[in-house]
Every structure is written in structure tokens, then in C-alpha cells.
């Protein structure tokens, strides 16, 4: 790299988003005579087609070898301007984005002078970093056209079919001896009364017809190595055997668990107090009449939101703050099924809010038409379940009748239990995927990057991500399928080249870095008779934990070298003249 660089700087107005609060002309002028700056310009919208073209022409005409765009967050437009550089035959890693909007104009709307000063410093830091950039190339990895699906509930089975139909081989790992998850247990399911078991039978039948799907039951994923596009995995299958496979992507579909009330929670433990899954099984199995303890059931009280939307008042440790989504709908639907079995059963629904959202509203109406009665209670006054003269009663303040305290005698009290994350610690450890505040697997962004996790190539789907209905579980699993397929059908993935690099002159192979690397990306090699550390590019994530552990200061991350960071700090610290 020659010492002299030729850098172009573009300071964006963002149509006022930046220029209303930062004097962008002053920023442009402040840096125009900085070392190596050849062009310093203002632009109205840097991301507009015309400006992109203008930048390309400038790069080509002025033979620029570094580019700085001071505009919005790199999350929004880093890729845009990297592509601009690429189109002008400038290495995209010699581009630096300076965030003048989210980190400057939007945050300092009341003081233009200071905001402008900060803007100048940020741009100077960007220029300083750019001055020390080197051309870098992406690391290209050939992908394996195979996917691992973990969990064979409705989400996992549906994903497997879709992948197979796209021409990708699929391995499905189910830890139980039978597939189907919770859905297999259910009879009539909303919204169309199709039997849960039928849905699973159908999916399994379809799976069996596809040669490129291999199903392992009683099996578990025990090891995962490699990286996006090329994972090497180990599965424990029946009889204690293991199978090793290479797959390009992994879809997690490990589902949910049903909330288990604690002893005494709304009378749980008393004869006749059941959870929604227990009740649903009773209803599904009932034939002509609904019986409990050999008696015909006459009165049923439902208590909603058990285990969901729990208060944060400190009484419950780690309360589940979320709504479980499915339960209002499942409860009113089950109540309709009960009315179909015996219309004379009286059903009382003690609810906080009726969240039969979207099309499921109709089920709420139908339950009403079939004489279910809905009694709303306030968060502060939960129903109480008691036994009085050997019979179950529930007391509640009817918020729709001025808080009147009422007492309902019931043969059955159904606790409408929510969904909770499934216990899956060993799998979570193998996959190293993050868990959200609510305990379910976390997607990167619910709107912009659903089903993706921070581990490239590992996707989450169905209720493993959070409470969902069957239809929603399938939708999310198909979304994970399209993400996996988009990745694998291209044949390769390009990884960013921001990985560690060892200076073999400085390295004395003490082995400290090897110990610190969580990805096993460092190994010893002999280089000119000297033992030194070397980095395995496909494994290194560029996390940099090895760097401070090296006593010889021999490791750097490409694209984020110590020298670059120092030069940026210097630029930020320097007074604006």
C-alpha cells in the first residue's frame, strides 16, 4: 500500500434529516483539506441512483482508492455503498460508512454547533480508518445441499417436506419415538376442525414418500462443528449409535411446553381442576357425553391466562410476561366442541382480555351463541378456587357488572394454560443459539430478520421461537425453509473477511490464543522451522477474544486493526479547529 491515498468523502443531507441539525457544508469544508482527501462533497440523498452514479464516476475519474460516505446507519446502507465501490472497481472493504444521522443529527437536535463539531470528528475518524484500509476478499464457502431439521412436530415435518420438494436432502431428528409433537395429541383443532392426529398422519405419509428425507426418531443432535453452508454434525440415534453428517443449514423446530401450574395455583391439585391440554384430551375422547369421575359434567369454569401475562409484582419468580396467543382461541374453540357434545353444559369463561384475534373472532362469537358466558376480571382481582361442601367453587369479581363478586359452582375448572419454552439445555449448548428474555429461542429481528439467529445458517421455527398456533408455526417453518434454501441453492456463501491474522514474526507459539478461541479456529503450524499460530478462516468469527490474550501482541483482526482503531480515536480526540 502506498503511503499516499486518494479518498473521496460524501456528506449527505438526507433531505434535511441530517442537514436540519448538522451544518453539512461546514463538515464538508472542515475535512476537504485533510490528508489524502481528494474530493469532499455534499449530496442531497447519497443513496439515490443519481448520486450513486456520481460517486462511481468520481472514483473512476479521480482514481480514488478509498471512499467515505457520511450518511445514515450502516445497518441501512452499508451494503448499498459497498456495492457502489464494487461497481467502480474499488475494493468494497476500502469503504467506510460514517453514521451522521442516527448517531449525530437525530440524537442532537437542539444544538447545531455541537452537533456539527461532533459530525466533523466522526467524519475525520472515518477518513483516518479509510486511510489504513487494505483490499480484502470475502471468504467463499461451498455449501452442502442438505439441511438438518431438529424436532418433528408440525413445524419440523412441514419444513422437511418443503425442503425436499426444493430438491434438498433433509435429515430430521426427533427425540421422541413418535413424530408429531403436541399436534399429534389433539382431536379437533381450530380453525377448521381438522383432527390434529390426521394432520400429522398426513404429513408423515408425505415424508415417507420422499426419498430425500431421512427421519431419525429417538435421536438427538450431540455435536455441531463447521460453519454456515458446511456444518459437520453428529447425531445420536437409537441403540446408542452415532451418525456423522455434513449439512449446509439447520432448522430448529423443537416446539414448546405447556405451562405446569404450581400446587394450589387456582386450586391446581384439587380433584376437578385441570389444565387446558388435559381438558382437551378429555373432550377429544368423550363420546356422546362429557364425564368426569363417572359423573356427567354440568358446569365448567375456565380461568384464562394461567401462566401467561403474569404480573411483575415480585410474587412470581421470573414471571412469563407474554401472552401465549393460542389459548384464548383454543379455549373458546374447545368450549364450542363441548357444546356440540352436550348443549346443556353451562360454561363460564373467566378471562382478562379476549384475544381471539383476526379470523378467530368468529370462534368467540360462536362460543357465545352456544351459550358460553364470558366474565371479565381485572388483573388485580384474580379468581379464587375453593372447595365448599365437597364441591368446587370459583369466586370472581365480574368487571362487566361493576365488580360484583360472584360465585360459580363447577364440576370442572379448566386452567387455560399458556405455552412455555421447552427444556432443551443440551441442544442450546450444542447450537450456541441465544435465548430471549422470555426463554424462547431468539430471532435476530421480528420484522426485518425473522427466523434467523445470530449463528449464520441456523434458523428457528414454530413454537421454539415463541407461542404460535399451528398455522403460524407452519408459516414460520416455511419461512425458515426459504431462508435455508436461498442459502443452499446458490451453492456458496461469502463470509466477511474480518477474521484474525497472526504476525508470524512476533508469534512465539505460547498457545494462549488457541486456549482462548471459543470456535477452535486457531492451530499450531510450522512456518520456516518456527512454530507459530495460524487461523482457520472458515472457523474464525472475528470475535477477537484471542487478541488481548496474546502476550506478544501478534494477532489482529483484518479490517479492524489496532492501527486503524487508534487512528480513529486520535481523529475523534483532536480539537476541531
Amino acid at each position, binding site marked *: 500500500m502506498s503511503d499516499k491515498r486518494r479518498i473521496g468523502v460524501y456528506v449527505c443531507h438526507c433531505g434535511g434529516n441530517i442537514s436540519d441539525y448538522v451544518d453539512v457544508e461546514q463538515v464538508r469544508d472542515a475535512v476537504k483539506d485533510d490528508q489524502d482527501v481528494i474530493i469532499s462533497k455534499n449530496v442531497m440523498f447519497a443513496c439515490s441512483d443519481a448520486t450513486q452514479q456520481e460517486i462511481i464516476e468520481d472514483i473512476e475519474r479521480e482514481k480514488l482508492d478509498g471512499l467515505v460516505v457520511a450518511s445514515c446507519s450502516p445497518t441501512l446502507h452499508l451494503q448499498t455503498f459497498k456495492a457502489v465501490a464494487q461497481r467502480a472497481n474499488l475494493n468494497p472493504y476500502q469503504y467506510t460508512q460514517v453514521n451522521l444521522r442516527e448517531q449525530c443529527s437525530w440524537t442532537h437536535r437542539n444544538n447545531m454547533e455541537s452537533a456539527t463539531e461532533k459530525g466533523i470528528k466522526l467524519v475525520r475518524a472515518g477518513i483516518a480508518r479509510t486511510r489504513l484500509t487494505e483490499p480484502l476478499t470475502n471468504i467463499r464457502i461451498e455449501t452442502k445441499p442438505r439441511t438438518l431439521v431438529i424436532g418433528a412436530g408440525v413445524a419440523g415435518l412441514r419444513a422437511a417436506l418443503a425442503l425436499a420438494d426444493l430438491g434438498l436432502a433433509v435429515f430430521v431428528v426427533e427425540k421422541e419415538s413418535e413424530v408429531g409433537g403436541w399436534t399429534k395429541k389433539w382431536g379437533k383443532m381450530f380453525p377448521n376442525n381438522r383432527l390434529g392426529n390426521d394432520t400429522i398422519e398426513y404429513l408423515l405419509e408425505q415424508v415417507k414418500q420422499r426419498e430425500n428425507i431421512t427421519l431419525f426418531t429417538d435421536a438427538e443432535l450431540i455435536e455441531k462443528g463447521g460453519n454456515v453452508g458446511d456444518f459437520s454434525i453428529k447425531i445420536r440415534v437409537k441403540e446408542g449409535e452415532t451418525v456423522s453428517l455434513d449439512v449446509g443449514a439447520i432448522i430448529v423446530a423443537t416446539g414448546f411446553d405447556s405451562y405446569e401450574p404450581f400446587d394450589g395455583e387456582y386450586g391446581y391439585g384439587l380433584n376437578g381442576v385441570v389444565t387446558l391440554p388435559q381438558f382437551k384430551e378429555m373432550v377429544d375422547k368423550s363420546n356422546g357425553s362429557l364425564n368426569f369421575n363417572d359423573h356427567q359434567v354440568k358446569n365448567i369454569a375456565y380461568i384464562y391466562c394461567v401462566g401467561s401475562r403474569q404480573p411483575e409484582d415480585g410474587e412470581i419468580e421470573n414471571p412469563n410476561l407474554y401472552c401465549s396467543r393460542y389459548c384464548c382461541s383454543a379455549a373458546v374453540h374447545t368450549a364450542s366442541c363441548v357444546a356440540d357434545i352436550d348443549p346443556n353444559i353451562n360454561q363460564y369463561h373467566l378471562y382478562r382480555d379476549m384475544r381471539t384475534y383476526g379470523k378467530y373472532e368468529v370462534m368467540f362469537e360462536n362460543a357465545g351463541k352456544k351459550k358460553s358466558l364470558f366474565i371479565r376480571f381485572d388483573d388485580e382481582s384474580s379468581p379464587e378456587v375453593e372447595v365448599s361442601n365437597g364441591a368446587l367453587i370459583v369466586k370472581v369479581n365480574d368487571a362487566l*357488572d361493576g365488580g360484583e363478586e360472584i360465585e*360459580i359452582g363447577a364440576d370442572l375448572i379448566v386452567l387455560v394454560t399458556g405455552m412455555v419454552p421447552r427444556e432443551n439445555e443440551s441442544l442450546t449448548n450444542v447450537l450456541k443459539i441465544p435465548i430471549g428474555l422470555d426463554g424462547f429461542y431468539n430471532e435476530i429481528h421480528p420484522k426485518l430478520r425473522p427466523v434467523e439467529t445470530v449463528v449464520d445458517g441456523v434458523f428457528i421455527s414454530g413454537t421454539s421461537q415463541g407461542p404460535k398456533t399451528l398455522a403460524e408455526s407452519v408459516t414460520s417453518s416455511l419461512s425458515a425453509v426459504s431462508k435455508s434454501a436461498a442459502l443452499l441453492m446458490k451453492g456458496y456463501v461469502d463470509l466477511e473477511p474480518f477474521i484474525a491474522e497472526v504476525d508470524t514474526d512476533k508469534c512465539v507459539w505460547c498457545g494462549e490464543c488457541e486456549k482462548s478461541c471459543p470456535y477452535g479456529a486457531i492451530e499450531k503450524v510450522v512456518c520456516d522451522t518456527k512454530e507459530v499460530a495460524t487461523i482457520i478462516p472458515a472457523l474464525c468469527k472475528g470475535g477477537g477474544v484471542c487478541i488481548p490474550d496474546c502476550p506478544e501482541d501478534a494477532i489482529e483482526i483484518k479490517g479492524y486493526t489496532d492501527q486503524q482503531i487508534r487512528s480513529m480515536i486520535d481523529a475523534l480526540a483532536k480539537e476541531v479547529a
Partner: protein
Amino acid sequence: MSKVNPDFVEKISGFTEFNAYACINCGSCTALCPMGIDLLPRRMFRHVMLGFEDKVLENTEEVFSCLLCKMCEENCPKEVPIVENIKSIRWYINRDIFKLGRG
């Protein structure tokens, strides 16, 4: 404390079947009533469905002050047959409480 009595509504249903199960408690009926009857129809119907006989009888006067004008019914989003229901309640009170009619 009021005890829910599922059998009460049967008593009311002698005239025509009492039916307010579609009610979503929106309160439009109460708001629109020209007589400004606070309990009718929404809360009164609730008392019937939950079987609070004493509450219904405590408010006999309200039941009979209704004009049967149908302002409420015309505007009920759930098409609850409000006036028929009120007539049912009257029928029950006349028969069972006032002991009117021909038995």
C-alpha cells in the same frame, strides 16, 4: 356475593326463549336508552344469564319502565333481541311474582 344459578334462565324462557348470549357488553343499549335506565338491558340480561334472581326482582321497576321503543335493539351490534328478552322478563315477573295470568 351472588351465586350463579344456571337454572334461572329456564324460568324466564317460558314466553319466548331468553337469548342474550351474543351480547358483547358494548353498552350501546344503555347509552342510547331514552329512559336512561342504567341496568337495562345489558346488566339486567347479565343477571338473568348468571341466574341472579334477587337482582332481577330488585329492579322490577326498571323492567317495567322500559318503553319497548327498540332504540337499543335497533343499534345493538350483535342483534340481541332485546325487546323480546325484556318481555320475557316481564312475563316471568307477572306470572311468578305478581301471580297474574291464567296459571
